[in-house]
């Protein structure tokens, strides 16, 4: 009888030790992230969304790895989310040896994710926009086209010289079994948990990467909805979401997909209506507060 008791204890322990790491692993896969979202109802038929961004004020010579900059939107069928999400983005490489990147340069980072996969389903292949010091700002946009059968990620890079280059990258959802035909925006709820279908924010490059010496401005954000037309985020309230509260979608069995997933320690922000500047602040170890108002 005693032997049976120990057997049950051992079996229970083995079961837990086998199962829990697979759950905890997802949490450990998280990256530092701090972002914002609009406070509004849900928009189910978003055909494009955009954001203007600038890395001015960053010091890549004092950055060991990289800082990423995303406008993210859940994919949807027009009536519901579907577990996929889209990220129109770019990143600034530091000069450190931690990551093998393009030192001091800004690179494209447009991505599409199925939230149940470990890794991005699609990336744009990587394009070098040039040195951060030569770039004034970047307009990042994602657009449904060809009767909503294709998404084009568009990055218009404006240089300090006055010239600009417009890059286009095409993603075809049917090639990846992605059922999406629209983006989504707004704040919804699932199982009492808030989900932010359109987010703008910054992300470290790997788990625990509280990257120092960066500053990223995000402004002129908005989207087009089939019914509502053009919606500028400056016309709505916006709050911070980060860490384990940055849900952007959920899957068919109720799992939530997050952006980032870790609190971005040493992050800070200044904001006014429609504009936020995220930045590193070594005197703010706890980072920006989750849920605080941006505008």
């Amino acid at each position, binding site marked *: 009888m005693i032997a*049976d008791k120990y057997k*049950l204890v051992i079996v*229970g322990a083995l*079961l*837990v*030790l086998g199962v*829990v*790491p*697979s*759950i*905890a*692993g*997802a*949490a*450990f*896969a*998280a*990256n530092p992230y701090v972002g914002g979202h609009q406070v509004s109802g849900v928009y189910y038929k978003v055909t494009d969304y955009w954001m203007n961004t600038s890395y001015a004020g960053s010091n890549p010579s004092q950055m060991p*790895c990289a800082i990423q900059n*995303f406008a993210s939107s859940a994919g949807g069928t027009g009536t519901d989310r579907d577990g996929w*999400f889209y990220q129109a*983005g770019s990143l600034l490489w530091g000069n450190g040896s931690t990551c*093998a*990147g*393009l030192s001091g340069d800004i690179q*494209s*980072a447009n*991505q599409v994710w199925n939230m149940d996969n470990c*890794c*991005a*389903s699609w*990336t744009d*292949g*990587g*394009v070098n926009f040039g040195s951060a010091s*030569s770039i004034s700002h970047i307009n990042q946009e994602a657009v449904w086209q060809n009767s909503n059968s294709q998404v*084009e990620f*568009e990055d*218009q890079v404006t240089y300090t*010289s*006055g*010239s*600009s*280059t*417009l890059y*286009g*990258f*095409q993603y075809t959802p049917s090639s990846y079994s992605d059922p999406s035909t629209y983006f989504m925006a707004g704040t919804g709820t699932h199982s009492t*948990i808030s989900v932010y279908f359109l987010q703008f924010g910054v*992300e470290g*490059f*790997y*788990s625990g990467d509280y990257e120092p010496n960066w500053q990223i401005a995000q402004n002129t954000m908005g989207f087009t909805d089939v019914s509502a037309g053009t919606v500028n985020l400056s016309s709505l309230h916006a709050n911070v979401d980060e860490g384990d509260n940055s*849900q952007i979608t959920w899957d068919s069995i*109720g*799992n*939530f*997909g*997050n952006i980032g*997933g870790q609190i971005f320690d040493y992050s800070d922000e200044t904001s006014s209506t429609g504009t936020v500047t995220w930045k590193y602040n070594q005197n703010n170890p706890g980072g920006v507060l989750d849920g605080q108002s941006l505008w």
Partner: protein
Amino acid sequence: MNKKSIAIFASSVVPIIFLLALVTGATSFESKGNSMGANGVVNVKNGTIVTYLNSPIVMKVGIEKTTISLGNTTEIPITFTYDKVNDQTRPITVLLGDKANQAILFTPSATTKYTQKEKQAFLTSSNLPSDAVNLYSLESFSKNTLTLMPGQTTTVDMFIHIPNSWPQEMIGQSIIFNVNHRFVPPLSIQPSGPISVEVVITK
């Protein structure tokens, strides 16, 4: 199992769950926190997390900065190396000169002259105004398709031709020419290494 056995089972499991919850920082075991790292920095392999920061593909342009005069063509070797990362065995195909990508350069005056929507319309237009240049149309490659196996390195030549019709406004300026490429299947991490050529255009 009878009720007593279930109670013993539960008494062994619950404290362990609680202990592990404290260790991992998890507050509950609801299906939440399916967090996504960006740029594919992490990968799940056999139930454990493998963290790596570098792409499996290292792309290296042989010349990172050069000068090309109007009407001339320059040859630049591009090396692709497929590093062995996480014991990957699948081949990766590199498509060069792919039509799915676009890069259109606008002169300073064109940047302010055209609206954002007008510029975006040029992405699908075969006729560009004289103050806009389709940069990828100026590139060609010695091969348009490569297939790489893990551990393999291959070099192709990229040719950049600067036409005589190059906008006057952009003479003497530095232009970033990216290697127009696409990976099949797509990489979860962008390729590392010098992936573009900075070209100063001269008369």
